[in-house]
């Protein structure tokens, strides 16, 4: 099929540290030594300590800093570190003493050590204004502002009922990881996109072809899930028009064509609550919209921070030990939760979708129950 032969790094032998190789699959116990440090005990009697530290938003690190990390790993660790799936860095060593030293060094460099258990495990942000052409709001700077506000929950000075993770995505594509998470913050245009007519032709079939192909075969028409994009005949010309009332701000048009644009004055963020991926408690689920839109004001995003803080406060106050936000909301009920947060009553428009939008929204409810865990009843 392909002439390209990639050199994908697949040699486990090469990449795993020796101490890990010796104890691979033999872990029998682990102990938490305060925030960020885990001791892994192996059947062989060996022990490995990991030290987890937060990285800047979007896991953006300069090579200078990476070099310092390498030095620490060589000096105090086992000559290796790892990056967690969520963009934290984990140093690996073989004694608690060294682990504590690593923590010290990292904190000196400005990278707080923390996470695990009833704590903030970190904030994930997409790249947004750093590189992304379709971003609506800037996730990394929100991540920074929120990190500043929530740091004590990461480093363990303040406790939470259970794991907390926040995903911040600059647009509904959800590159920070979607919405199946405790708190998801998602960029929203706030109003239907505007079409930059001068750019549109790049995304459309040439006029002659357009006259011949059926509407349903036009790519941009296909891509819009609500039928907000349709063809209209204006005299001789066939035009792509956007029916604002049908638009649900999903951004699929813009994902696929640079002609779609928005007005910065309408822009905001949606805040979703109570999703998770783990099968713990009530099991994996998508978060739901608590706030459909609030302003996203750089560089400090006070409004977003205020909502997140309020949500965390409510959960802290009423949640039970070990209860993820999703489990908490499930127990007390969504209505009660919204009341505790004090959010305004959701607009009827938001709860009761116009017919056009329904396909997009209820297909999922048409059929199966979503995978809810692993039951193996007799």
């Amino acid at each position, binding site marked *: *099929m392909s002439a*390209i032969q*990639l*050199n*994908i*790094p*697949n040699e*486990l032998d*090469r990449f*795993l*540290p020796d101490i*890990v190789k010796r104890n*691979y699959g033999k*872990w*029998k*116990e682990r102990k938490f030594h305060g925030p960020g440090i885990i001791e892994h005990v192996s059947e062989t009697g060996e022990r490995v300590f990991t030290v987890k530290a937060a990285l*800047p938003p979007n*896991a*953006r*690190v300069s*090579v*200078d*800093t990476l070099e310092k990390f390498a030095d620490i790993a060589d000096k105090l660790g086992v*000559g*290796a*570190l*790892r*990056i*967690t*799936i969520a*963009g934290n*860095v984990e140093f690996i060593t073989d004694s608690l003493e060294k682990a504590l030293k690593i923590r010290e060094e990292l904190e000196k460099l400005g*990278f707080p050590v923390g996470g695990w258990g009833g704590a903030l495990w970190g904030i994930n942000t*997409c790249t947004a*204004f750093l590189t992304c052409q379709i971003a609506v709001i800037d996730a990394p700077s929100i991540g920074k502002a929120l990190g*500043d506000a929530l*740091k004590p929950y990461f480093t363990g000075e303040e406790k939470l009922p259970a794991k907390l993770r926040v995903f911040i995505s600059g647009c509904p*594509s959800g590159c920070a*990881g*979607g919405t*199946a998470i405790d708190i998801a913050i998602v960029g929203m245009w706030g109003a239907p996109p505007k079409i930059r007519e001068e750019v549109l032709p790049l995304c459309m079939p040439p006029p002659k072809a357009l006259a011949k192909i059926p509407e349903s075969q036009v*790519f941009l028409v*296909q*891509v819009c*899930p609500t039928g907000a994009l349709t063809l209209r005949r204006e005299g001789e010309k066939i035009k792509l028009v956007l029916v604002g009332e049908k638009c649900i701000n999903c951004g699929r048009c813009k994902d696929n064509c640079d002609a779609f644009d928005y007005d*910065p004055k309408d822009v905001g963020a949606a805040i979703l609550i109570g999703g998770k991926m*783990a*099968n*713990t408690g009530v*099991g994996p689920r998508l978060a739901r919209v608590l706030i459909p839109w609030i302003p996203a004001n750089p*560089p400090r995003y006070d409004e977003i921070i205020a909502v997140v803080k309020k949500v965390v406060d409510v959960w802290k106050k009423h949640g039970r030990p070990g209860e993820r936000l999703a489990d908490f909301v499930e127990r007390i009920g969504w209505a009660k939760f919204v009341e505790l947060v004090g959010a305004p009553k959701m607009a009827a428009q938001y709860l009761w979708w116009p017919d056009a939008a329904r396909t*997009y929204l209820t297909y*999922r409810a048409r*059929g*199966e129950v979503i*995978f809810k865990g*692993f*039951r*193996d*009843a007799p």
Partner: protein
Amino acid sequence: EMAEQYLKELEKGPWPSHVAEIRKTGYPLHVYGVGLVARKSPWGPSAVKAKRLTGVLARIARDWVPKGGEEVHFRVFHTPGRFLPTSYLRGIIKVAREYGIGLVEVVGQTGAMVINVRSKEVGDAMIEALRQVGTDVGGSGDAIRELNTCVGPALCEFALYDTLKWFTEFRKDKKIHDAIAVPGFPYKFKIKFSGCPMDCGRANRADLGFIGTWKGAPEVDQELLRKKIEAGEVDPNDLVSKCAGGAISWDAEKKELKIDGSRCKKCMYCIRKAYPAIKPGKERRVAVVVGGGSKGRYGPKLGWFVGYLKPDEVQKGIELVFKVIEPWDKEAQAKVRVGDYILMTGLYQFIEKTGIQLEDTPKLVEKLPDNVPYRVLPEEERKKYAQFAEELRRAVGI
């Protein structure tokens, strides 16, 4: 100007700052700053010629950005479990300095490492240099994306199958390799692995996810458990009342914990609280979920369960990739994710079309309780039921 003021503001405060890090690199920070002030992404699409068909992305500053700017970055394959021996890491650093601007996104949300390239001209040279270090560029567009996995048996006591082995075996497979290198599907396709139901690998939201689990009850070491209880480490009543499945009962007289396997929902509560006195059960499995994603045509979705594999059936897992892809690739329109396609076809028909037949593959789709009893069936359907009734009548003996 205001942009700089915003940037400075983002360097203050106790949390690590991306701006502070980026200042140490060659990244055009003013573009970012102007974007923040304008409340709009400052970047527009651009293109770059390179030896790779996936993993290569280029941006150019929008015309309203004073002085303009350019940005090119590569998605680079990560190591298994994202372990970075310092020797390897120093190699990457060298490349990022020589051909890049000294800036690395150490892991993207799909699982790739993202490295900025100095200019459009050095792209191919950087690819060559990365190959020397032992990695490569790829995994974007309508292709199989960078795979991802939790750390699994390398560091975690809960791993129920060897996630790192599966991850590497998958990437080594020729067909998967080719589907990573060359785009051609209706849309992106992501594969993720988690060693246990905690799903640290986020497999529940992958197009195709593999999650370690077991059948039946967790394993209980009664003696060790009694010790933990006496030591006050474990409260049996807490286990009973928090068990998600209501599966646990505690016999206070015999000091014995019983778990009803058929009610266990694999929520890991008892295991997390009493490990290693309570451990996952011995009948280990890999649950396969299909169709997760964050947007697509029909909005966010988690995957659907389609059956179990055994921990050693990595080869069957690889075959599954193409079973899942085949009908989707053939029938779906562009920009329809697998999960959307499943919603269009119905999970039930999807399973038929793919020919997925695993242990406990759902034979009937679970429906919401609010379906309606009225429907005109085609005559041949009615015949099927009539025949069933006839057989049953004979079997029951009426």
